[in-house]
């Protein structure tokens, strides 16, 4: 089943045409990496999927519903996100944030279970802004999982994290994907992560979809790694 369908998506900021006719599909259970150089339109594309950015032309269908013809709250219940950087109320503690977002999502998830699953016990009484970058991303992911989303959108989730925190974050993402069959769409500049964890890759270049293929397909076409594929396809 298609969770996301995008047809001929266009978006401009004033005279700057950022997206020039993107086509994209994501099916249930897929992990898809969106790559491209800075300014390629990755974040704009994700923000449109998050339903927080207007677009100029094209169609965006999430969970079989056109987002311009559906109440967004209905769609947002099924989406969770981790932004870069994710910010929450700075004067709330981790446990309080979890409780607040639990009420937003009207979730039945047990807060203590989430705290335990994400190893947040030592941090639950800390203010969000006092956490390190890595733990902020872990808390963001824990909050994202409160809703048990069908679609998880991650904008550069591992940027600035040390290898241990990166591994930890990915272990949660892949576990979620395996356990729930949820779809994950993310942007990253780390091609190793794309190769290790993503089923498909979409390369954006100058606002267009230059390549949209499986990771295995890209490697089978003669590239020794996704990193090399990126370097050959994208020029500075």
């Amino acid at each position, binding site marked *: 089943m298609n969770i996301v369908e995008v047809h001929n998506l266009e978006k401009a900021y004033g005279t700057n045409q950022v997206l020039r006719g993107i086509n994209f599909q994501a099916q249930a259970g897929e992990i898809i990496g969106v790559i491209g150089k800075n300014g390629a339109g990755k974040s704009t594309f994700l923000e449109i999927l*998050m339903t927080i950015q207007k677009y100029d032309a094209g169609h965006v269908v999430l969970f079989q519903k056109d987002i311009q013809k559906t109440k*967004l*709250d209905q769609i947002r219940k099924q989406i*969770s996100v981790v932004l870069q950087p994710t*910010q929450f109320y700075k*004067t709330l503690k981790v446990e309080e944030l979890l*409780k607040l977002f639990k009420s*937003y999502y009207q979730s039945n998830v047990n807060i203590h279970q989430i705290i335990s699953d994400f190893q947040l016990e030592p941090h639950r009484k800390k203010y969000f802004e006092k956490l390190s970058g890595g733990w902020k991303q872990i808390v963001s992911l824990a909050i994202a999982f409160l809703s048990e989303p069908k679609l998880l959108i991650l904008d550069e989730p591992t940027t600035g994290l040390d290898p241990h925190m990166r591994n930890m974050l990915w272990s949660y993402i892949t576990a979620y994907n395996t356990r729930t069959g949820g779809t994950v769409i993310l942007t990253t500049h780390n091609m190793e992560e794309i190769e290790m964890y993503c089923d498909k890759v979409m390369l954006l270049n100058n606002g267009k979809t230059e390549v949209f293929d499986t990771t295995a397909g890209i490697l089978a076409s003669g590239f020794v790694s996704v990193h090399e594929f990126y370097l050959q396809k994208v020029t500075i």
Partner: protein
Amino acid sequence: MLLTQLKYDLLMFSRELFYLVFTILVPPVTYLFMGQLFGDQTYSGNLNYAETYTPSFILVITFTVVFFAFGFDQVMQRTTGVEKRISISPVSKNMLLLSSIIRAIIMTSFGFILISIIGFLMYDLEIRFWSILLSYGFFIILNAVMLILASAIYSFFQRMNSALVFSIVIFQVIIFTGGLAMPIKVMPNFIQVIAKFNPLYHMNNLFIAVWNGHFTMDSQTVFSVGYLAVLVLVAFICIRIQHKRKIG
């Protein structure tokens, strides 16, 4: 969900030292301090210090709560990305706004009670049930006016630093040209002219009149009410325009 949001909104307010100092601490201390200096004087309308400055300092608290903890807070949430993250959650914007408004009214009502008690204990303020009830009703209307003006003004800010500088500057201007700390009549002419454009000056005059049972529909009152009504209308238009720029 509203009660949960309100609980955390109040908790966040209580943890923000900047808000606490400017709302709960500075105005009551200034009210006490000014009372010690000028408590024996008689003011416009043959009113004493408590009759003139109790409603004024209630307005000061209302202004600081609404402009700092409501208006500036909105800019802070917007510029730090909190608003963006919340906007992706399935939570009604109206519910969040309602919680902010209730929080502001709770805090300003606390200010109303606090200043009234200080006035009663320190400056022989007379508290009559119906008069205080009428004043509180009018105070809620002034709350609504300030909330609308603050929403409109702060909707234009995209940077926290500029909003902070604006807030601090406007605080000084509003206090001095609003007749909230000193009578406008003793100020230089140009301040008296500026005061006419200050909505707090008009609110203050109206509130003092209502507080002391002197409210009459004379030309000055009609001008003040009309001026505030025009500002509210303009603010509504601004809010509407800004709202259309946002999605969902």
